[in-house]
């Protein structure tokens, strides 16, 4: 690790010195330096009522900066990261400071080679996806080498070989993968030029190695997974599907069973002017795939299984979110988006947008084999059958309408069924039934002032036992944009229905910010819950917090 750290600066210094020696500074300037920074700091107040712990350091911070150099076909860069100490709620592995991300890439005549860290996705990511979601602390970059090569128009190949990032270092296993994709219409341009149907096919193979040091079990040291995919497009219809298979891969995530894994992810869409229809299907069976078999949570995942539900942006609609279940799930989603025409009876003067979305996730139909003393295959599952356990369901309708040049608004209604036992690892918890209504109105007060009001309500229904959860919520956000550069916002989320009377708390917070060009500074004070939070025109993922916050972002 230390050696690797040393290599990059030495390399960069060497490169720049070389350029100095070769040419005048302006010619060096043929290349460019660019990057971005973010600082997130918070001063914490303990608050036993909402479960905010005492923070020994009182104040915590996350910060990072990317610095990239590009010159023609060459680029190199580093990301310096610092966690002193990391923000409350962020994964504990992020400690201290370092340069965990560094790379150099050269691209020449359709061949691109990268040494260092890379983010890569094969197909829809069922067997390989290394990516970052820095606000949540997810970063499983592959550190090693990556090659991408396109020998002919329409043929795209790539390969990666390396270890995965594990917080500030790398994990135990080695990941190797190749992927190929053929765009038939591009490849057979001459004979397919008049064919309206467009066909793309692809396939991947990924293998991981980790030594077997288990005293009791004989574990596979090399675990292979493959996938095949296609994308067929004709006129307004677009079908894409990927099937993946993984050999037995006993791990902490699946309870060290020797059953092979399978996954299927497909979507079908129809789109025309003013109308879009989406259907999605996902079946996952024992498909947690990690470069360290003992890893847990979001750590060292080689693949990524999506959550096939709507990604809600409003705070209370995102209160009961679905988390993808790589060990086993069957889920589907349908969405219709329609634009009612301007001037029509329902559409009104400016037109109206309506979107209806439905999603559900169930467990698999499984039979337990009770063979943990023998073959350890664990269970069998029926491929075309759906299990009895509902994990999650969401039905929602969203309507957007512009009333006049000063006023426009969005109305959302959603009904959620949430299986807390499965999704949060609880036991004997009843299903949570929640109804959420959101009204988001933008009111242009004058040339210099715009007010956004976001009123939300969450009502728990169903059985009386649901009182075990946090009960009903009401939320109001008022956000005022002033001129070109400033905004102030105040929000109150009131847990008025909490079954414990003392916990009927107002989560009150205020924010103020300034932005100009690519600089943005935001101050905040108050309590926030975890989720996607949009304010001042920007969305990001935030963990739960209580206290003063300061965020600075910049790019150049």
């Amino acid at each position: 690790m230390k050696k690797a750290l040393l290599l990059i600066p030495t390399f960069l210094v060497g490169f720049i010195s070389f350029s100095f020696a070769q040419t005048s500074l302006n010619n060096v300037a043929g290349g460019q330096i660019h990057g971005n920074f973010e600082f997130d700091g918070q001063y914490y107040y303990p608050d036993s009522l909402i479960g905010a712990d005492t923070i020994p350091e009182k104040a915590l911070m996350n910060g990072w900066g990317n610095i990239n150099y590009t010159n023609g076909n060459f680029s190199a860069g580093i990301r310096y990261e610092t966690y002193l100490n990391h923000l409350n709620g962020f994964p504990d592995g992020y400690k201290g400071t370092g340069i965990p991300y560094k790379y150099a890439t050269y691209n020449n005549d359709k061949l691109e080679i990268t040494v260092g860290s890379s983010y890569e996705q094969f197909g829809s990511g069922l067997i390989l996806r290394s990516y970052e979601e820095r606000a949540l602390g997810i970063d499983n970059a592959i550190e090693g080498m990556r090659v991408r090569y396109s020998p002919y128009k329409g043929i795209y190949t790539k390969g990666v070989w390396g270890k995965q990032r594990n917080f500030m270092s790398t994990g135990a296993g080695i990941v190797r993968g190749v992927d190929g994709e053929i765009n038939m219409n591009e490849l057979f341009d001459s004979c397919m030029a008049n064919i309206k149907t467009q066909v793309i096919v692809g396939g991947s193979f990924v293998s991981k190695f980790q030594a077997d040091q288990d005293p009791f079990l004989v574990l596979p040291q090399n675990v292979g997974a493959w996938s095949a995919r296609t994308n067929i497009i004709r006129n307004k219809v677009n079908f894409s599907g990927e099937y993946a298979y993984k050999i037995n891969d006993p791990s902490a995530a699946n309870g060290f069973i020797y059953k092979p894994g399978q996954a299927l992810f497909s979507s079908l869409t129809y789109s025309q002017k003013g109308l879009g229809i989406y259907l999605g299907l996902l079946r996952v069976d024992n498909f947690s795939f990690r470069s360290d078999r003992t890893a847990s949570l979001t750590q060292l995942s080689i693949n990524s299984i999506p959550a096939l539900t709507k990604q809600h942006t409003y705070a209370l609609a995102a209160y009961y979110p679905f988390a993808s279940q790589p060990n086993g799930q069957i889920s589907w989603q349908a969405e219709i988006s329609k634009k009612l025409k301007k001037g029509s009876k329902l559409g009104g003067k400016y037109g109206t947008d309506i979107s209806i979305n439905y999603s559900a996730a169930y467990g698999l139909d499984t039979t337990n084999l009770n063979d943990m003393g023998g073959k350890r295959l664990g269970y069998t599952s029926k491929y075309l059958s759906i299990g009895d356990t509902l994990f999650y369901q969401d039905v929602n309708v969203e309507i957007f309408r512009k009333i006049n040049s000063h006023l426009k608004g969005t109305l959302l209604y959603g009904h959620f069924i949430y299986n807390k036992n499965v999704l949060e690892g609880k036991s004997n918890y009843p299903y949570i039934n929640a109804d959420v209504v959101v009204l988001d109105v933008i009111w242009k007060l004058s040339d210099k002032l715009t007010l956004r009001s976001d009123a939300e309500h969450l009502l728990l229904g169903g059985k009386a036992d649901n009182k075990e959860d946090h009960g009903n919520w009401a939320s109001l956000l008022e956000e005022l944009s002033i001129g070109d550069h400033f905004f102030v916002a105040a929000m109150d989320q009131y847990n008025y229905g909490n079954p414990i009377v003392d916990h009927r708390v107002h989560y009150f917070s205020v924010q103020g910010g300034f932005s100009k060009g690519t600089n943005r500074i935001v101050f905040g004070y108050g309590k926030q819950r975890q989720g996607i939070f949009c304010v001042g025109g920007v969305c990001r993922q935030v963990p739960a917090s209580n206290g003063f916050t300061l965020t600075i972002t910049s790019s150049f």
Partner: protein
Amino acid sequence: MKRISSAILLSVFLFTTVAFRFQDAPLQKVPSVQIKSMDGKMINTSEFANDGKPMIIDFWATWCAPCKKELNEIAEVYGDWQKETGVKLIAISIDDQRNSPKVKPYVESKDWDYEVYLDENQDFKRGMNVNNVPHVFVLNGKGEIVWQTNVYNENGGVEKLHDVISKVAKGEKPE
């Protein structure tokens, strides 16, 4: 450890020195990154072009309400902007595999006239140093980045963008 720190310090120092001297250097261009069209075709971002007229590159996502508000607001006046300045808007969706299949139905249902591409694993987002969405870049006729913002200001953000492209189309420097 000392050697590492000094090597890092030295390289940062050199970087900064060079960066300051770069101020007269040509403006930043769009890096070369592979992204996909909504029809699954591989596109290289360095090939973005608009016949010497300005371009807008707008990073958005289907889950980002302010992004969608901004792009829907621009959609109402986009035809006028094109007539006036010849501008082309390229919308880059950073939706991952969870939502990327929904991008095309969404875009078509809104009847957007933009070029829309998918940056599923966010390679282009990283290449353009985008922290959060929305992030909007304006490029001049030479494909150089001349203006950018990383917020959607509901208070006239779209009018401001119009001012910027009008100036850029005339060859003037935007504020």
